[in-house]
């Protein structure tokens, strides 16, 4: 029997520490309201443990700590019988610590370290059941794709250091405030590459749905609180270094617009609950990026927090469902309304929040995203007005699609006739209840813009009606088939790149073996020969030794005289 509660207790200690640390920072001013006071940037190169927790950082930290704690509690039931529970639970704690490091640090290299540790943790956790080939493949894909993006972050850090002469984020902010944003395009596009990889945006989106063979609590953790959220957060955190750059903001708007719609459409045609939820994460992350592109980083972070709550709820609920029916295929579900009542009610809240139905928190934060894009269409932000308009239209279309797929998933999972009895372990349901309450409670005090609210509610209702009308029927064939194949966007990543890489690797390997290896092998042989020669001189004959000393002294004197 594995003792499971120590790991929960450990997570709880970390979470409480984070709460004590972060809560006092909540009521300070937000990212852009921050005025740097001590303008003493540390000089190159530096690796410091300085932290700087801003209000938005505090929110993200609280979200990460809370979701991780709930996931850890939930895992005692979901993964309790697992042989490798111990490493699993400890990796979750490490994941949280890395996330806190990324969020709280003021040093770019510490940020990079946390970022990479998260990458490794996600690799290990997605591949937790490494006996299954698709687990291994998914984990490997997550690692390789995000690593590709990480390259962008590394180069961006070097560029920031060279530009502003410091690796402190605050120091760079001060520099950017004093001398204007320099090399903003380069830094912005490099950071964008990094977060596109980490947050699974087009064109590096494919790893997130393929990470589904991992344990479902891990999926909740990655999708809601840590990994993908880190991408959004880091982009917002570094925004003062490139926020005025039109190129970066336009690129971000295009990426987010394409991603939100495509991913929502992919979610609409899935036959697998978990994979559909994964695509929905991709789509929702694009909303956050859209808000940042519109110049409203705080709104993006708000949506990040609200999404974290309801997506954790949905994935954990999905885990209960999978635990009950034994698969994540939608065809095996249906009628779970009566057999899994707690899951049904909480997931209903979650789906409502996803679809943006009042009074859930998803409604309010999504409306603020739409509103901020609308404000950007006035042309007062770096984002060109035309791009903002296009983004706004795409966002409203995505509201429709999102409501449609949320409704469809809800119906296929819970409505219909009950098949047989299932059980909900209490340690799995009470995290759900906690998250469900959070989805409602977080909306208290949220501002409301009536025009946007009315319009988005109408669009969402239209989407729900559409889903009700289609019931479980697929879309028409010419639309359904390419969408179900995810437009073949994965093709270059799974086919062409590996084929090219393998070709290059073969050539490099041959060159290495035939050409370069000659030197180390020759070196080893030479070392061996010299070794034998030196040892051959150790004859034990003292005359030889004395001669060696005399000759040596002579040689050394020669060196001394000649070198002089």
């Amino acid at each position: 029997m594995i003792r499971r509660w120590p790991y929960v207790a450990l997570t709880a200690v970390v979470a409480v520490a984070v709460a004590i640390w972060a809560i006092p920072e909540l009521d300070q001013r937000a990212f852009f309201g921050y005025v740097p006071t001590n303008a003493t940037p540390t000089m190159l190169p530096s690796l410091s443990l300085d932290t700087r927790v801003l209000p938005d950082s505090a929110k993200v930290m609280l979200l990460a700590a809370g979701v991780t704690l709930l996931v850890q509690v939930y895992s005692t039931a979901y993964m309790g019988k697992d042989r490798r529970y111990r490493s699993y639970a400890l990796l979750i704690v490490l994941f949280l610590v890395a996330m806190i490091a990324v969020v709280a640090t003021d040093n770019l290299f510490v940020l990079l370290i946390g970022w990479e540790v998260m990458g490794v943790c996600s690799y290990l956790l997605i591949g937790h059941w490494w006996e299954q080939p698709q687990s291994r493949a998914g984990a490997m894909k997550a690692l390789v794709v995000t690593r590709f993006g990480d390259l962008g972050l590394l180069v961006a850090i070097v560029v920031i250091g060279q530009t502003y002469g410091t690796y402190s984020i605050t120091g760079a902010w001060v520099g950017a405030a004093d001398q204007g944003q320099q090399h903003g395009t380069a830094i912005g596009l490099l950071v964008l590459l990094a977060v596109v990889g980490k947050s699974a945006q087009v064109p590096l989106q494919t790893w997130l749905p393929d990470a589904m063979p991992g344990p479902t609590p891990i999926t909740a953790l990655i999708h809601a609180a840590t990994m993908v959220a880190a991408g959004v957060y880091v982009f917002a955190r570094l925004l003062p270094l490139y926020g005025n750059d039109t190129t970066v903001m336009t690129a971000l708007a295009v990426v987010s617009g394409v991603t939100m719609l495509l991913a929502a459409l992919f979610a609409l045609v899935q036959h697998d609950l978990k994979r559909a939820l994964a695509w929905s994460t991709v789509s929702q992350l694009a909303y956050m990026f859209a808000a940042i592109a519109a110049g409203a980083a705080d709104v993006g972070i708000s949506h990040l927090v609200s999404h974290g709550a309801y997506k954790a709820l949905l994935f954990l609920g999905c885990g209960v469902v999978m635990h009950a029916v034994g698969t994540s295929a939608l065809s095996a579900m249906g009628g779970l309304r009566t057999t899994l009542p707690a899951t049904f009610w909480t997931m209903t809240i979650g789906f409502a929040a996803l679809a943006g139905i009042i009074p859930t928190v998803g409604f309010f934060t999504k409306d603020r995203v739409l509103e901020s894009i609308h404000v950007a269409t006035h042309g007062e932000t770096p984002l060109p007005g035309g791009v903002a308009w296009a983004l706004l239209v795409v966002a409203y279309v995505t509201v429709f699609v999102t409501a449609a797929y949320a409704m469809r998933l809800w119906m296929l999972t819970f409505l219909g006739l009950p098949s047989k009895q299932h059980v909900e372990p209490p340690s799995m349901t009470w995290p759900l209840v906690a998250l469900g309450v959070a989805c409602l409670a977080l909306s208290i005090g949220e501002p409301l813009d009536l025009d946007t609210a009315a319009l988005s509610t109408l669009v969402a209702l239209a989407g729900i009606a559409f889903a009700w009308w289609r019931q479980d029927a697929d879309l028409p064939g010419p639309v359904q088939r390419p969408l179900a194949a995810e437009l073949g966007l994965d093709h270059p990543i799974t086919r062409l790149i590996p084929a090219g890489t393998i070709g290059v690797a073969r050539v490099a390997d041959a060159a290495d073996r035939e050409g370069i290896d000659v030197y180390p092998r020759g070196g080893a042989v030479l070392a061996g020969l010299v070794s034998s020669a030196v040892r051959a001189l150790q004859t034990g004959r003292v005359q030889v030794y004395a001669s060696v000393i005399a000759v040596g002294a002579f040689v050394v004197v020669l060196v001394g005289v000649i070198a002089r």
Partner: protein
Amino acid sequence: MSIPIDWATAGPAVIVATSALVALMVDAFWPRRSWFASSLPLLAGLVGGFVELGRTGSVDDVSAALTFVILAGTVLVLVGATVMSDEDSMPPGELHLLLGSAASGALVMVAARDLVTLIVAIELLALPSIALIGLRQGDRRGIASSWTFFLTSVVSTAVTLMGVALLYGSTGTLTYAGLSRELVDPAVPDAVVAVAVVLTLVGLLFKLGAVPFHAWVPDTYRGASVVIAGFLASVSKAGALGALLVLLAIGLSPVDDVWVPVIAVVATASMTLGNLAALRERDGVGMLAWSSVAQAGFLVAPATAVLTAEGLSAPLQYLAVYALANLVGFTALAVVLRTRGSTSYDTLTGLARSEPWLGVPLAFVALTLAGFPPAVIGLVTKYVVLRPVVDDGLTWLAVVMAVNVMLGLAYYLRLVVVLVSRPADEPDGITSRPAAPTGLATAAVAVGTAALVVLSVLPGLLIDHLP
């Protein structure tokens, strides 16, 4: 004529030498001839040396630090030597007399500030060492080693004496201070001084076991008792290195253009040949012997930068860690030799599993000498000796050192692998293990290893407290 005696300089050496004589007397006249009767006086003398050092200090901080290293090393050797306390062929009184005399020789060596004292100190260290190597009665191999050491030692001392004579002839002074004054004089013939300086250094390089004056090292270390080999590798070397550093930094500082290339070449040759020879070694003591030749190179390499700010402290810090690690290693091997009858790699296989209190320290020592984490202190000191060399502009020497660190990894890590791998065939139980008094030596190993571990966690303890 009264000769003023600077007790701050001579104090510890006199106390240790006196206690060595007391040890011999006790052994000679105590009716029940026992090991501890003669080792305790020497131990008391060493403690007295510490007290004296703490009370009066030494000539300068460098000599004080070296004195500390020598005293501490001798204490470890003394405790480690108890592993031989039940051997009839090892006379305790003589052993402790010679050990104390040699240690006081090393102490005088690092405090010497003129060439005559230096020569006397070299002999005071060398002659007891010769006897120590061949002390075990009836051990032909030990006597042969002793003979080897004697002859090579005589040759090198003769060379040094020639150098000293030349120096005296050309400058008319024997004190370090006088040398540094006179050598700037342009009237002194350059070529003669160059030859004289290099010849003077030979004796000290011989004691250090640096190539090309290393030939005695492997034979002697294998022939002597393992604990005595540890003494030669740490205490004796500490004395020689200290004397070398002080001589270069004070006495010969005006003629650094002569000795810097010599030291650099000797360091290169020592590191490279020592490491290459150690690659083929399949015996614990033999490996440590060749490794000590290579380490001599690392010890003298930063001496090329001895006139810079960090020049003196870098080799000191390296020496302290090296001496401690080597003593722990030799003492552990001495215990293994007593209990298992051999120190070959075949015997050592799986030692960290079967006897972790010996095998794990040995592995940690190998990692320290290699400069490989988790033995962080080894890595730190490797960095410490590389830095002044780079700062001084001898980049090629730094590259050679880096390559040699890599070469060293090959055989140090092999020893670690041997220690932790599973034995091919399980030895058939604890069949005929001779009951040897290994308790104190094992405790010394444990204490030494603990010190290394503490230093690895808090390298600042060493870096901040040595000058």
